[in-house]
């Protein structure tokens, strides 16, 4: 129980602090405050995807359908956070760079993550038989996750010249992060992670309840 109170108080305090402290990046100004939410959302998007992949591996190893249930639940949460990260990022891009979409490497990678999630759900919709659906979508999720390191770590290194604007994000993120900015940012990261695990826990318990119900009916 105590951690829920902590989460509530912490997140509320973080939100207030993120608006009353000076903007994290002076050049961009007030709109740079979106980093406090945008980056944690993007992080949860990747974390949820990784969790989904771990559950997929466990499913393929054990063939127990509840692991597949967990994999879908975390994928659904990840999709929502991915959508949030895309929308907040796009709004920010409009203000800072003048257009909603610039195809800088980071925008590309979040877009591809969104596509992967979409393809994952499309695949699940296309297979009726539960065991086969679990196996096929599990394999796809693992296979797709293998490409993510290419997107996140390698791609920004080979196509930097196309998007010089990206350096603004980098400098504000990695070099000019002052002490108060750092505290708020990492607090936000931690709080978002706790929130994600709470939501995951809830959807897992709901999933189990649904399974019990189905077993009773059949």
């Amino acid at each position: 129980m105590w951690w829920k109170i902590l989460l509530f108080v912490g997140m509320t305090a973080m939100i207030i602090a993120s608006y009353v402290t000076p903007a994290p990046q002076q050049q961009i100004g007030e709109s740079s405050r979106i980093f406090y939410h945008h980056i944690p959302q993007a992080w949860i998007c990747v974390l949820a995807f990784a969790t989904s992949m771990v559950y997929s591996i466990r499913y393929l190893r054990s063939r127990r359908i509840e692991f597949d249930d967990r994999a879908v639940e975390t994928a659904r949460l990840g999709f929502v956070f991915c959508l949030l990260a895309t929308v907040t990022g796009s709004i920010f891009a409009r203000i800072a760079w003048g257009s909603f979409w610039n195809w800088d490497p980071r925008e590309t990678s979040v877009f591809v993550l969104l596509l992967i999630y979409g393809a994952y759900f499309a695949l699940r919709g296309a297979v009726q038989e539960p065991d086969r659906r679990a196996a096929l979508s599990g394999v796809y999720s693992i296979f797709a996750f293998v490409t993510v390191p290419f997107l996140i770590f390698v791609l920004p290194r080979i196509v930097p010249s196309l998007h010089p604007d990206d350096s603004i994000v980098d400098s504000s993120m990695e070099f000019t992060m002052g002490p108060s900015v750092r505290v708020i940012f990492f607090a936000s990261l931690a709080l978002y992670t706790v929130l994600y695990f709470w939501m995951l826990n809830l959807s897992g318990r709901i999933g189990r309840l649904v399974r019990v119900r189905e077993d009773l009916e059949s």
Partner: protein
Amino acid sequence: MDGNYAAMAVTLVVWIGLFFYLMRLDNKVKRLEEKNR
């Protein structure tokens, strides 16, 4: 500066709404789990 406070208010409303929704969901799930046991 006023814009900041408006944005803060919106963010807080969204967060508090989400928190209480999750709390309610949590309690409901707990009740159902106990009933199943």
